[in-house]
């Protein structure tokens, strides 16, 4: 084959790969929609999303407790993680020697690679008993398998990604910005607060959104510590049942009860849609930031 022909063949293959990529993304959405059809035919979307009645045997598939559970746990994880990660990212970016900065990146990547199931193990061993004791002190009862346990474990899981992205965004703010502020006699914290965070705000926001959608979709670690009781949690010490855990726990039974598999596929669709929304938003913002600075 001539060189040109080889080149064109290779180029063609790359195009096919790109198209496959698109097909895949659509395919997932379509497949989930198709599999959700049966249940959507029997109940409206609002009933599925807002009803608290979860009795698969009777055909009741109210996803509300699971959605609320997911929101509680993810929300708590963000509440814990965001301040801590921002502070840490600012510290690494602005206050440390460049050698420490250089060492922090690979370390964070390493920690980002720890398998979720390991976090789950740690959660069962260290966090669940702690939460149980805390609940006792607070006067309520808890087995320890709770929203709080899930929130803590999730928060620690998303530390690496939020810190990494935030630190990168902060580094992208040009040195002149710091020079301009410091030259006027501002303290480093004032410079950070008034200039850096303001300049990097879209990027920081995107980092937070990325962290949130990671938390939202996490299955294993949360499943192991959150209690998996299908009821709307009323306090931090109550158990919850996030959507990913619902899907994971019930794949065994889902074929035996009518419409159960469809309901779970619908749950997966909801997850997909929410995470999709957040991730696309965040990525667009991050790309915009890059373009503005470059």
């Amino acid at each position, binding site marked *: 084959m001539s060189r040109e022909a080889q080149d064109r063949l290779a180029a063609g293959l790359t195009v096919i790969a790109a198209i496959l990529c698109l097909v895949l993304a659509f395919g997932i959405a379509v497949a989930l929609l198709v599999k959700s059809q049966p249940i959507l035919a029997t109940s409206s979307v609002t009933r599925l999303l807002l009803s608290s009645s979860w009795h698969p045997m009777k055909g009741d598939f109210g996803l509300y407790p699971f959605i609320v559970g997911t929101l509680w746990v993810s929300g708590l994880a963000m509440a814990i993680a965001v301040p801590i990660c921002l502070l840490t990212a600012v510290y690494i970016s602005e*206050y440390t020697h460049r050698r420490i900065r250089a060492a922090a990146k690979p370390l964070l990547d390493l920690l980002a690679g720890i398998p979720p199931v390991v976090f789950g193990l740690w959660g069962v061993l260290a966090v669940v008993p702690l939460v149980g004791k805390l609940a006792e002190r607070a006067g309520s009862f808890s087995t320890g398998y709770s929203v709080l346990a899930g929130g803590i474990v999730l928060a620690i899981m998303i530390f690496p990604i939020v810190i990494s992205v935030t630190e990168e965004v902060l580094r992208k703010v040009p040195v002149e910005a710091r020079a301009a502020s410091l030259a006027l006699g501002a*303290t480093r914290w004032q410079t950070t607060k008034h200039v850096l965070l303001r300049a990097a705000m879209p990027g920081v926001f995107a980092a937070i959104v990325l962290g949130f959608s990671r938390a939202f979709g996490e299955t294993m670690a949360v499943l192991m510590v959150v209690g998996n009781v299908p009821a709307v949690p009323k306090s931090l010490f109550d158990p919850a049942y996030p959507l990913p855990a619902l899907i994971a726990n019930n794949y065994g039974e889902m074929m035996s009860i009518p419409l159960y598999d469809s309901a779970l596929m619908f749950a997966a669709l909801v997850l997909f849609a929410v995470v999709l929304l957040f991730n696309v938003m965040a990525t667009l913002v991050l790309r915009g930031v890059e373009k503005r600075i470059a």
Partner: protein
Amino acid sequence: MSARRLEEAFFRALMIAATLLVAASLFGVLAVVLVKGLPALTLDMVTKTPRGGYYLGKEGGVLNAIAGSLCLGIGATAAALLLALPIVFYLQDEYGGRSRLAGMARLALDVLWGVPSIVYGAFGFAIMLYFGLRASLLGGIIALCLVEMPIMARAMHEVVRMVPAELKEASYALGATRLETGRQVVWRYALPGIVTAVLLAFGRGIGDAAAVLFTAGYTDYLPSSLTEPVASLPLAVFFQIGTPFPQVQQRAYASGAILLAIVLLLSVICRLLARRSDVHVLR
């Protein structure tokens, strides 16, 4: 002294506390699992498959899961590589980089990157049902490939983007085709980064439980064929921790330690490769 000096000192202390908290918690996770797991980590664990009664505390090991994870990981990573590499090359300017298809493909990759692995598991399961497959090594490979591909593609894209345009121009100026430039210049320059991306994806793949839960099934036997269910380390951990027997729970930690060891080893290899191989990188 002024309020802002105090403010500076206060926030500085807060920042240090936060950083220490992050470091302590993450290392705490590692430490706890290793400390709990190492005592139960016997040679048997790594060399034997579960015998009868394993889950009740009797003999055996998790070789089935170790071998299963490796098979799943290698299969999925190879498949993901087949898809990720061409896409990343396509996104370069001299291929389709500026076309609308490329823009959409980039968006699609971002979408796929963010999909939770449980959704890939559910999707994989739906596909398998449609084709009449059961939970098997093949099913697990498909699902994991879906999980790994966007991670690999994103990491590779970062590396390939960094290849200086002047370098490629030098090659084209000599009359080379895109394919030749890709194989002789881009590949060589970006190879360490590409390998890192592959290892990174591999590490994420073997650590993932949610995607293989429905699609790979579980078994006490070593992987024998593509159409049989296969065990995996994350699921081994999960099932063992769920039993009421302390010896079995201990083994869960040991399995977790094995999994951690594999993932950390991969990370270290990545770091070493990255450092040793910037021979061709221009400064």
